[in-house]
């Protein structure tokens, strides 16, 4: 697996799997060993604040709702 691929898989898991996120934050090196991820990647992920992960998830939900939307007229008057 390339480093780019490994980094993307880890980042995707970090923002979608709360158990993985918790383990990475608790001990990035131990999480790297446990999940077979390059330690440089888990150390980078651990520096992302929980608030930013929440904002990313919030932004994602908003985009999902708009995409799925095609709701009846949302034109504000």
């Amino acid at each position: 697996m390339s480093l780019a691929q490994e980094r993307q898989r880890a980042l995707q898991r970090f923002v979608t799997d709360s158990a993985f996120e918790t383990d990475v934050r608790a001990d990035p090196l131990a999480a790297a060993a446990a999940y077979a991820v390059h330690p440089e990647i888990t150390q980078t992920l651990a520096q992302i604040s929980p608030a930013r992960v929440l904002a990313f998830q919030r932004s994602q939900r908003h985009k999902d709702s708009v995409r799925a939307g095609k709701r009846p007229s949302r034109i504000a008057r």
Partner: protein
Amino acid sequence: MPTRPIACGIALRDEYIAPLLAMRDRTALDIVEVMVEDGFASTARVRDWQRIGARWPLISHGTELGPGDAEGVQRDYLAQVQQVLGTIGTQWHSDHLCFLRSDRDHVGLGSFGPLALDDHDLHVLKRNLAEVHATIRGHVLLENPADVLGFAGSDGAKLGRDYARALSAAGVGGLLDVTNLALNARNDGFDPLDFLQHIAWDRVIEVHLAGGRLAGGLWIDSHDHPVDEESWALLSVVVQRAPHLRAVIIERDDRLPPLETLLAEVDRARGVVGR
């Protein structure tokens, strides 16, 4: 200064199709941008786009390419894009500089995954865009996305250089979303002008303007508010520096205002670009 007229227009949403087709005055906007994935499953919508295209030039935008996907881009998706583009005839196509799917066997991220834009990512971009260019005929642009995770860092100059390197590696033009730039700068504490000092100006073809909102202490690119003043100020900087800038598009995805409100923003953009 740009050497050609800069077209100003809107990102088309279904709610605006009927009002646009009913407009007698075609001079209120110069160009229309369609969201290509909306055309995949609706021939009726594509027919509407063709009618719009008979009145104004069309450009297209997408959200599901994932040009940074290390697993590679999806060929069936590219074929669908080309089918729509071939039907409606657009001047260029754009998508976001990001990854979307880290594993073909799992559901995609669903939003724009940030790239580190190191040599590993640039190798992926070069490989993927070669495949994109083999399928999609015409120019392709990549947009600087919002990065609410702050994954790419907070050094504005480095972020600008990385964007320039990415466009060069991919062999594509730039869609500079000045609102994404402004929001990233606020969240990460850098000066957006540092970013703009280091991008490849000769590659910038299009600008996006939108409105974001503050959520949980961070700015997200919600596209549900009018264009903010900082974005307007950044547009005036871009217009002075991008010699090949061809279009400025106002985006709104939610809390859609009446068409007239968006056209007033188009008119303001025209004032900034001197059209």
